[in-house]
C-alpha cells in the first residue's frame, strides 16, 4: 500500500479493511498501554482505588461462594436424615435383622440399623433420665425399630422412599423428619435473595467508585482533552483512554477480590472441615471454580467499563475548546 502524493494528502493512508483493522488495533493497543502506564505512575492512588473495588467485589463473591457451599452441603444432608421404621410386635428379632439386611440392598439406602425393643428400652433408660418409668411397667412398650439413612433425599426421593417403606408388611409405620430440611432450604432461598440484593448494591458501589475516579481523571486531563478535540479527536477517541482505565480498575479489583477470597478460603478450610467432621460429614468447602472466577473477572471488568462510560458520558461533553 503506497501513500499517494500530497494533493490527495492526509486522507490517502491505508484504506483497505486489513489496513483499517491494523491501524485500529495499533491505536487501541497504544491507548491501552498508555492507560496502564498512567495508572502505574501513581501506584498509591491506583492501589487504593483497586483496593476499594476489590473489597466491594469481595463481599458479593464471598456470598456467592458461601451460598454455593451451603447448597452443596444441604444436598449432602441426607446423611443427617434418618427414616425410622416401627415394626409390628409380631416381627421377631431374627425377622427384623433379616429385613435390615434386605433393606441394605436397596439403592437409595446407605445404612441401616436394627434396634430391638430391649435395646430401645436400655437406650431410653440411659438417655432419657426417665428410666424408672419404664422399670415400673410390667411389659416393655417399645417396638422394635429399624433406623435407615437414605442415600439421597434430593427432590422427591425422600418422600418416595418413605412411601415404599410404609408399604412393607413388617412395618407398622415409617417416619421421616423432613421438616428441618425444608426449613433449611427455605432459609437458603431467603439468603440467596439477600445475597443477590447485596451483590446488586455492591456492584453499584463499584460503578460509583470507578465513575468518580474517572471523573477526577477527566478533570485532571482537561487540558489534554481540549487539545485533542482541537486537533480533531472525536468524542469516541477522547473517551477511549478513560474507558480503558475504568476497565483496568475493574479487572484489577476483580483479581484482588479473587485473591482475597482464596486467602479467606484457605483460612477457613481447616476449621470448617473440623466442624463438619463433628457432624460425620466429609464435605470439604470449595472456593471459586475457574469458571466462576473468570466470570468474576469478566463481570468486574464490565462494571469498570460501565462506570467509566457513565462518567465519560456525563463529563466529557462539557469539556469543549473555548
Amino acid at each position, binding site marked *: 500500500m503506497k501513500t499517494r502524493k500530497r494533493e490527495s494528502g492526509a486522507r490517502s493512508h491505508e484504506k483497505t479493511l486489513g489496513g483499517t483493522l491494523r491501524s485500529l488495533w*495499533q491505536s487501541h493497543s497504544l491507548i491501552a498501554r498508555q492507560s496502564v502506564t498512567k495508572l502505574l505512575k501513581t501506584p498509591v492512588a491506583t492501589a487504593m482505588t483497586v483496593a476499594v473495588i476489590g473489597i466491594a467485589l469481595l463481599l458479593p463473591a464471598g456470598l456467592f461462594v458461601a451460598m454455593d457451599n451451603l447448597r452443596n452441603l444441604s444436598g449432602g444432608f441426607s446423611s443427617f436424615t434418618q427414616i425410622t421404621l416401627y415394626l409390628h410386635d409380631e416381627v421377631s428379632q431374627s425377622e427384623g435383622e433379616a429385613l435390615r439386611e434386605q433393606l441394605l440392598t436397596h439403592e437409595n439406602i446407605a445404612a441401616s440399623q436394627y434396634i430391638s425393643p430391649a435395646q430401645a428400652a436400655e437406650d431410653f433408660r440411659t438417655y432419657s433420665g426417665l428410666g424408672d418409668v419404664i422399670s415400673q411397667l410390667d411389659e416393655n412398650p417399645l417396638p422394635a425399630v429399624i433406623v435407615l439413612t437414605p442415600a439421597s433425599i434430593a427432590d422427591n426421593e425422600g418422600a418416595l422412599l418413605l412411601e415404599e417403606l410404609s408399604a412393607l408388611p413388617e412395618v407398622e409405620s415409617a417416619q421421616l423428619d423432613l421438616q428441618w430440611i425444608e426449613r433449611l432450604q427455605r432459609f437458603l432461598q431467603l439468603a440467596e435473595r439477600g445475597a443477590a440484593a447485596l451483590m446488586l448494591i455492591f456492584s453499584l458501589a463499584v460503578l460509583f467508585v470507578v465513575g468518580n475516579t474517572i471523573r477526577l481523571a477527566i478533570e485532571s486531563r482537561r487540558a489534554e482533552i481540549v487539545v*485533542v478535540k*482541537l*486537533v*480533531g*479527536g472525536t468524542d469516541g477517541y477522547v473517551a477511549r483512554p478513560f474507558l480503558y482505565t475504568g476497565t483496568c480498575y475493574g479487572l484489577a479489583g476483580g483479581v484482588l477480590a479473587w485473591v482475597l477470597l482464596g486467602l479467606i478460603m484457605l483460612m477457613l478450610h481447616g476449621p470448617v472441615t473440623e466442624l463438619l467432621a463433628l457432624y460425620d460429614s466429609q464435605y470439604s468447602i470449595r472456593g471459586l471454580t475457574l469458571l466462576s472466577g473468570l466470570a468474576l473477572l469478566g463481570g468486574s471488568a464490565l462494571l469498570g467499563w460501565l462506570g467509566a462510560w457513565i462518567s465519560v458520558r456525563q463529563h466529557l461533553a462539557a469539556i469543549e475548546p473555548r
Partner: protein
Amino acid sequence: MIKFDNVSKRYPGGHQALNQVSFELREGEMAFLTGRSGAGKSTLLKLIMLMEKANQGQILVNGKNLARLPRDQIPFYRRRIGVVFQDHQLLFDRSVFDNVALPLQIEGYPKHEADRRVRAALDKVGLLKKEKMNPMALSGGEQQRIGIARAVVNRPQILLADEPTGNLDPELAAEIMLLFEQFNQVGVSMLIASHDLSLIARLRHRILTLHNGQLVKDAIYHSAPEQTGSMN
C-alpha cells in the same frame, strides 16, 4: 477557501465580538488579521474552528456551510485545519515527538507512516534533534515551533494562527513568519492573527484589519504607521 458573509457574533452577556464581517480568503492565499486586543481576531478564528458559532451570517469553508455541519462531523472538519496558538497548547506529559504525532494518532495513521511524517514536520521546524525531549525543557520559540509542526503534520489545507509570535522576540518572530511563508508557498491557505503591525507590514501580504468587531480595512500593503502606536 474561507468565505465570511455578513458574519456577526455576540457572546452571551451582550459583547458584540464581530459585526457584519465579510471577506474571502482564496485557496493558497496568505493573509494577516490584525487589530487591537478585543477587536475580534480570536473570535473570528474560533468561528472558523467551530469553537464558537456565529449568530448571524454565513461562513463557508471549502464550500461547506459551517452552520449546517452536524456536531459529530466537527472533529473530521477540524482535521483539515491546522491551528497554531499563542500559548502553544502543548501537552507536557509527553515528548516533543508525541506532541507532534497526536493528530496522526487521532486519525489512526499506521505507525511507520506517522513516524515518517512527524520526523518530516520536526525537520521542517528544525527540532528533529530534540524529538525525545519534553516540551517543558524547551524555549518559548522552540515550543511555538512544536505547535507549528503539530499544526502541519497532517498536511492541512488551511493553517490558522492566533498571535503565533506574541511571546517571542522580533528575531524569533521573523523566523516563525518565514516558516509560515514557506508553508504558504507549497499551497497551504493561511490566516494569521497578529497585532505586530511592524512585522506583518514588512511581509507584504494581504492584511485584514478589525476594529470593534468590524472589518475596517482589507489591503495588500499596510502603510499606516500611526496605528502602530495604538496597537498594544
